[in-house]
């Protein structure tokens, strides 16, 4: 099926010219990286831009790198890049794990993590791992640079805090300054295509600290400070885990749709929470992932 409307295409060679172009056109333009979401949105008429600004000619937007105490994931970094990065596997195994569960190889070869959090569809796989790592989304526009804590990035399903003239340059993920390990759990019918029906991310840190995020069970993915506090103060006994499982019902608000019922999502989120917690703790005990 052809995309049923006409639009222009520009591929700027520098970030400066992309910023200027987007500054002039604002929401009439859309930024193109992997395009796996955008092409679908344009076929469905959900997005009708007058101009596509292809960012793939801008070298500085690519690459996974360490800078100081943070891991930087450039706007052009694909899920394939993340999945096959030794750096990510060793330093941030939860991102490695989640990247391997995104759609299929053919999509992961193209789709970017930045694109994933910019599309901000409630069932995205990137958000939970980034939330538990307190990631920061870094943008640039003609007005200057901006940094959004990931917890303030998601506004609603498919809506983020980004301004119409801003380009995300990278995601900055701070490396915790103590021992840590994460785990990601995703509920889906089969691998290779399915969107998550519910997902849970857990990060276990030294000092018996825990961070927990839920995705695809509400309009935006989110952390639960209350559950984190219970885990940190009361530990991980069977009784505490049961108590938290009850608490999960108050924290998340899943819907019933063609893929799963509200009740099933709620039940499975409780099950996956326990699995993610156990996995994160087991990995924490293994020395090779000490930061």
């Amino acid at each position, binding site marked *: 099926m052809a995309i049923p409307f*006409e639009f222009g*295409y520009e591929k700027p060679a520098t970030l400066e010219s992309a910023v200027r172009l987007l500054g002039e056109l604002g929401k009439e333009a859309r930024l*193109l990286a992997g395009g796996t979401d955008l092409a679908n949105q344009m076929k469905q008429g959900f997005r009708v831009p007058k101009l596509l600004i292809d960012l793939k000619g801008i070298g500085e937007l690519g690459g996974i790198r360490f800078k100081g105490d943070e891991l930087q994931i450039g706007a052009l970094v694909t899920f394939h890049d993340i999945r096959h990065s030794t750096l990510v596997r060793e330093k941030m195994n939860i991102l490695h794990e989640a990247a391997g569960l995104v759609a*299929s*190889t*053919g999509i992961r*070869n193209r789709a970017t993590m930045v694109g994933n959090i910019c599309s901000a569809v409630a069932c995205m796989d990137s958000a939970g791992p980034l939330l538990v790592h307190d990631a920061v989304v870094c943008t640039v526009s003609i007005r200057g640079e901006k940094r959004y804590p990931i917890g303030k990035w998601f506004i609603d399903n498919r809506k983020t805090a980004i301004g119409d003239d801003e380009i995300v340059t990278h995601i900055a993920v701070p490396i915790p300054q103590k021992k840590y390990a994460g785990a990601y759990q995703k509920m889906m019918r089969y691998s*290779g295509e399915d969107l998550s029906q519910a997902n849970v991310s857990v990060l276990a840190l030294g000092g018996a600290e825990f961070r927990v995020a839920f995705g695809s069970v509400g309009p935006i993915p989110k952390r639960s400070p209350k559950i984190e506090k219970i885990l940190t103060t009361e530990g991980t006994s069977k009784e505490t885990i049961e108590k938290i499982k009850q608490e999960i019902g108050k924290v998340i608000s899943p819907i019933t749709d063609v893929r799963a019922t509200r009740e099933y999502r709620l039940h499975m989120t409780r099950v996956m929470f326990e699995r993610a917690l156990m996995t994160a703790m087991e990995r924490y005990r293994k020395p090779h992932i000490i930061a």
Partner: protein
Amino acid sequence: MKKISITLNGESRTIFVEPNETLLEVLRDKMGVKSPKCGCDSGDCGACTVMLDGMTVRSCLVFAIETDGQEIITLEGVSRNGLTPLQKSFLKHNVFQCGYCAPGMVLSATELLNRNPHPGLHEIREAIAGNLCRCTGYTPVVEAILEVAKK
């Protein structure tokens, strides 16, 4: 209209495209390459798979204009010097019935074997996941790739 230059199955080609044409449409309708098929048209089924600079992509989700200067290999290109050992193994194991998913399966497995000549079961399953097949139940596909991987 914009002129783009690509290498298609080893040959340099120049073609005019509109920004709203997908790579799948251009390959099939303007360049006569029919192995990539339109299945779901939304990136889920894998029938439109082609290789772009050595990596499989869903050609229904790629704008043709993006591929200027890049190398595209379709199933026709994979077998232009005769069937590959992988394709012979697919034949031996009687892998396909209708064949609609075949180009995507062959290209996905080829990409995997190019990167890792001896993948295990898990890697094979991960590589072909997202190429939906309604005939085989996938078992013969996996067995055929596994046989090549063990050689």
